């Protein structure tokens, strides 16, 4: 008898053990580049998802800036240690798309494991950037932003300008900046992030409906070539150098320019052009009235303003994981694209609402009425039906190319080159980078 119960006990134990194995939660890793406040929100999203069901656990981990996360991911992939989900910035898109063996396209993943996933729910300006030539969505939109203009209303008022009117053209921006500096209301007029790249040439070209490269800005294939060395961009770069000499624009450094945000926060510069996702940071770090506006344009250029393009990042799924892990990923993506999660993320960060539903929900909640200026980014990106020149960029080795752009703009600002000379040289060097990428990927 005793023996029997012992056996039964063992059997019961065995059953519990095996069932606990069967019900073991599947854990997936998510590498991202959201530091500070944004990082906390990412953790919150993962925590809420984990708490909402019992099967899957998403573990986010911060891997440094976008560039570092991408490099780390590639190194990890080569070592067979890659995460399931990784956040890659938009300039890395070309490289990721070409890495067919490394990436599990999101449309395939969602077809296989997803639950009524409909790509058409997403805003076309966002998904357009991340779909292949057949219209398939390759990565999961997550945080997309577009550059907008922030200005210091207090300084505007002090300088005798109308604090409710943001500059709309570069001529106005120049004039207002001059008035601000001359009146002593602030030491500098404009601080512009991504002076050479995202704002100063990429969005600049889209807004003026000018091509950045051949083959639909690179969407058409790897054979693309840069063509942005036109007189309008050259004019803008020459203007930047002139404004710098006059003291109405201050260069904040390469890439994003680490000096730009502090210069605006401290009241040193009156106008700040940066990502719409800087909204939370701008509001948290300033004690003056902040106004919002769209990026300026040259009003004597035909077709301007067209529409701006996005930046930010998407989530890529990597190859080399188990079915359970992919099922977990699909479930997480379902959760992530729900209107509630998206609306909260959009409102809390200033990133664009990436689904139509999230945008409508935010409207219903009265978010845009309570927060004037929060919809500027959405308006600007939907200003006109996107053309071939304004639906985005897709070039391989883009991180390397952007460094070339920074270098060339620096030589204009140092007075070594004219805008045209610098752009011609950037195109030549950039095309070399594109040919390298083409050679390595075909």
């Amino acid at each position, binding site marked *: 008898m005793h023996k029997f119960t012992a056996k039964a006990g063992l059997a019961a134990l065995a059953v519990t053990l095996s069932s606990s194995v069967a019900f073991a939660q599947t854990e997936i890793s998510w590498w991202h580049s959201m530091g500070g406040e944004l990082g906390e929100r990412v953790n919150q999203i993962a925590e809420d998802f984990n708490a909402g069901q019992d099967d899957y656990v998403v573990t986010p981990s911060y891997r440094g800036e976008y560039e570092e996360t991408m490099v780390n991911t590639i190194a990890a992939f080569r070592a067979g240690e890659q995460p399931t989900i990784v956040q890659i910035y938009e300039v890395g898109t070309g490289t990721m798309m070409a890495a067919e063996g490394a990436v599990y396209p999101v449309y395939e993943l969602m077809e296989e494991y997803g639950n009524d996933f409909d790509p058409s729910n997403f805003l076309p300006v966002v998904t357009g950037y991340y779909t292949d030539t057949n219209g398939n969505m390759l990565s999961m939109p997550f945080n997309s932003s577009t550059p907008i203009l922030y200005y210091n209303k207090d300084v505007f008022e002090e300088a005798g300008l109308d604090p409710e009117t943001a500059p709309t053209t570069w001529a106005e921006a120049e004039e207002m900046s001059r008035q601000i500096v001359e009146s002593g209301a602030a030491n500098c007029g404009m601080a512009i992030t991504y002076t050479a790249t995202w704002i100063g040439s990429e969005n600049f070209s889209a807004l003026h409906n000018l091509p950045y490269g051949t083959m639909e800005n690179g969407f058409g294939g790897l054979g693309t070539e840069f063509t942005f060395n036109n007189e309008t961009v050259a004019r803008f770069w020459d203007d930047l150098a002139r404004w710098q000499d006059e003291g109405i624009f201050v260069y904040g450094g390469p890439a994003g320019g680490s000096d730009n945000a502090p210069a605006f926060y401290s009241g040193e510069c009156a106008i700040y052009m940066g990502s719409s996702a800087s909204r939370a940071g701008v509001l948290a770090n300033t004690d003056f009235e902040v106004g919002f506006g769209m990026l300026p344009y040259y009003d004597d250029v035909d077709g301007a303003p067209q529409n701006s393009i996005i930046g930010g990042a998407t989530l890529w799924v990597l190859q080399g994981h188990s079915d359970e892990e992919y099922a977990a990923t699909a479930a997480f993506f379902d959760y992530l694209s729900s209107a509630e999660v998206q609306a909260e993320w959009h409102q809390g960060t200033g990133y664009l609402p990436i689904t139509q539903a999230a945008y409508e929900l935010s409207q219903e909640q009265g978010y845009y009425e309570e927060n004037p200026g929060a919809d500027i980014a959405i308006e600007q990106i939907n200003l006109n039906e996107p053309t071939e020149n304004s639906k985005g960029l897709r070039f391989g080795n883009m991180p390397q190319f952007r460094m070339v752009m920074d*270098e060339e703009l620096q030589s204009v600002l140092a007075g070594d080159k004219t805008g045209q000379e610098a752009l011609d040289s950037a195109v030549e060097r950039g095309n070399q980078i594109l040919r390298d990428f083409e050679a*390595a990927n075909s």
Partner: protein
Amino acid sequence: MQTKRSIFTNRWLPYVLLAPQLIITLIFFIWPASQAVTSSFERQDPFGFRTTFVWFENYTRVLSDPSYANALWNTAVFAFGVVAVSMGFALLLAVCVDRAIRTARLYTTLLVWPYAVAPVVAGVLWWFLFNPTIGLLPYILEGFGYDWNHRVSGGQAMALIVIASAWKQISYNFLFFVAGLQSVPASLSEAASIDGAGPFKRFWTIIFPLLSPTTFFLMIININYVMFESFGTIDATTSGGPGQSTTTLVYKVYVDGVAGLNIGSSSAQSVLLMGIVIFLTFIQFRYVERRVNY
């Protein structure tokens, strides 16, 4: 050259004793170096799916690239600047400390501190001091009517990385110079002094030549430091800019390989860099050492 011969009774003991060092050298130096040599002949996509053997294409392209010549020139300027500034100041300080009698120890301790600072931290420190927007030094310089903005001016950016890299290295050089000075017999300069030689004359004709082994050793160490270890300082202060004016050879290896994901070109550059350093060290031993008095 003296040779010492030790007799081991156990045949294997010497190998066992050598093993840890050999294994570390193999795993961390020889193996990666051989990988670099291999991939310098290849073209590869970032994820490593497609690898093509391209013979010397990476080398020919690097060598015909004007930005490589630019990096070579920057490295020469940077190396000269750092070696001159760090060894000059170190020698000056060492001579001063050598003369101080009571407080020599205290000064020595204080002067060694910067060496404990990691290159990146040193870089950030100087980045703060020289930051065009919030830095203290540009503010002071502005008072003298000098406009400091190393984000735009290449010359100023070079000065900044020379100062930041040299500052850290002064401590190291200083220690060796102090030790070197202590080994110079006092009787020699006393004798010279009786013969009527002034302090400068004594220094240049007696002490400095006797210091030459230390100076020679430090020169090699400093050039190696400039070639390889200065990466952290440059990355934290100027990131190679503006317009590549502070991109040295080692920084270019990083930019092309890690940021640009062009592994072939980056490997070719690191092999070339290795060659340059070997060549320089060879030249120094072959020609400079002959003039050194041991």
